[in-house]
């Protein structure tokens, strides 16, 4: 009996090995490696030198581009998350209505989620192109001035947010929809019997019951927003100038275009702390509500 149990144990470890090995080699080891990289000054021609917190101090005190990226990402996250949260509730509620063609509407709102960031960016580049784009053609048709949408800093940031919301809204709306469908119908019947109108029912039944879902949307939205790279990298290339250069783009640039490994690692660590905090918050909130 004893030997059999030992062999089960061995079997379990064998089954785990491929997956865990990949985790260790490609996630856990790099994460530790990243920590050490952030403490070294590297150059392509000399061996790395240990410099302690120098990279972090440089980032925080001298690196204008890093601060630019931080300001950009904060604007991006605030705009993105506000729109995502508000619109996903609106769309979720709409898609939960007893309307005709409901399946079609759900698919239509979900469809952009399937598209790759590159395709999303190309689709909108084609629409927003300052010379040939259909949006400017429509504006011109209405007698309004054409705009250099992606070539002016403020517009470029606006469209960066808009395009990302467009691409991810369906995902969050589906989460809200699932949350709405989990609200017991008895609560609505009770509200109906008590003579609560639509607004009161929404305010006092739907909103409180949807709160856990909304927290998920809010925090997941923030995490994904801080991690944004592909959509904007292809849409604007971080431009015009550095107007839409976000933190991950900064990391990519330092690591792969400028060979500033130490700075890239230090900036990665800053971003990691933000994502770590958000994830732990989500976990604690979820656990306190017993929903995970």
């Amino acid at each position, binding site marked *: 009996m004893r030997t059999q149990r030992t062999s089960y144990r061995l079997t379990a470890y064998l*089954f785990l090995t491929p997956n865990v090995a990949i985790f260790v080699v490609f996630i856990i080891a790099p994460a530790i490696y990243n920590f050490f990289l952030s403490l070294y000054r590297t150059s392509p021609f000399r061996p790395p030198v240990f410099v302690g917190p120098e990279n972090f101090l440089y980032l925080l005190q001298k690196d204008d581009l890093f601060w630019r990226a931080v300001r950009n990402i904060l604007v991006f996250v605030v705009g993105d998350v506000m729109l995502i949260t508000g619109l996903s509730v609106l769309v979720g509620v709409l898609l939960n209505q007893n309307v005709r063609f409901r399946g079609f509407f759900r698919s239509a709102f979900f469809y952009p989620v*399937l598209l790759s960031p590159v*395709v999303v960016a190309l689709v909108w580049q084609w629409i927003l192109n300052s010379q040939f784009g259909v949006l400017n053609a429509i504006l011109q048709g209405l007698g309004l001035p054409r705009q250099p949408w992606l070539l002016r800093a403020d517009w470029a940031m606006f469209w960066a947010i808009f395009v990302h919301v467009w691409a991810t809204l369906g995902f969050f709306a589906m989460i809200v929809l699932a949350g709405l469908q989990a609200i017991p119908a008895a609560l609505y019947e009770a509200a109906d019997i008590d003579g609560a109108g639509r607004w009161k029912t929404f305010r006092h039944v739907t909103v409180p019951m949807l709160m856990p879902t909304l927290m998920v949307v809010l925090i997941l939205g923030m995490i994904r927003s801080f991690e944004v790279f592909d959509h904007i990298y292809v849409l604007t290339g971080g431009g015009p100038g550095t107007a839409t250069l976000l933190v991950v783009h900064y990391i990519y640039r330092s690591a792969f275009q400028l060979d500033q490994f130490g700075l890239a690692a230090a900036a990665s660590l800053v971003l990691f702390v933000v994502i770590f905090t958000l994830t732990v918050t989500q976990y604690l909130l979820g656990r306190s509500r017993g929903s995970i």
Partner: protein
Amino acid sequence: MATSSKAMQYRGGRMDTGTIGAYGCLVLGTAVMFLPVLWIVLSSFKGLNEIYRIPPTFLPEHWITSNYSGALERFPFLRYLTNSVVVTVVATAITLAINSMAAFALSKYRFPGRDAIFLVILGTLMIPLQVIMLPVYLVIAKLGMANSLWGIIIPPSATPTGVFLLRQYMLTIPDELLEAARIDGAGEFRIYWQVVLPLTRPALAVLTVFSIMWRWNDFLWPLIVINQDRLFTLQLGLARFRGELVTDWHYVLAMTVLSIIPITLVFAVLQRYLVSGIATTGLKG
């Protein structure tokens, strides 16, 4: 907000202002979500003169397909396509295999360190590629996987979400089934392969759809790992055409449309798995 509250209606049927408002919002929303894609599809069938014309035409004056044939001739589209298909298929197969093996071990055996391992696997959700892309690249380069499709396939194949999803599903399979198989003399691998996996099919289907979507649309991994044109995936190939100064828009449009056909078909057939996957686990879309 005001519109949504007005549109609240728990028993359908009557056409009041709220319902009309709901339809209005839905139609408007559908237009915003769907017209941009329709627009590039229509544009891809227009001639070069027509796509640059102002005011633009909505439907093509003459439906032409030379954008497609031209794109196929002038760009190594088929090579990119082949690379994308290879990456998607091989990576999805590996993901299903190793994630389900890990989930099997974590749900059907008791062994020291099991819960710790599970927590560590879930914990890696907090470390997205975006925050470790540099050290990951250095590791991949050291292993000689830079500029190879294996470098895109292997590292992201051990997905924490996949392990989680499958483990939760396998927990619902009664252990008595496994015991019965053992009494009948089945080995452990055979139990995994012939008893547990067939019963896990719905969860495997969800993971398959997500894996296809993740891999087909992936951009950051290939961007980091690959810098040789012959190894480009579709997404890398398409991304070369970004920017205001692109002059080959007619080809870019055609290639973009071609690249979204497979994923659209997958969606049409397997939509319910996608939606249920998001609804039950918040799986990243």
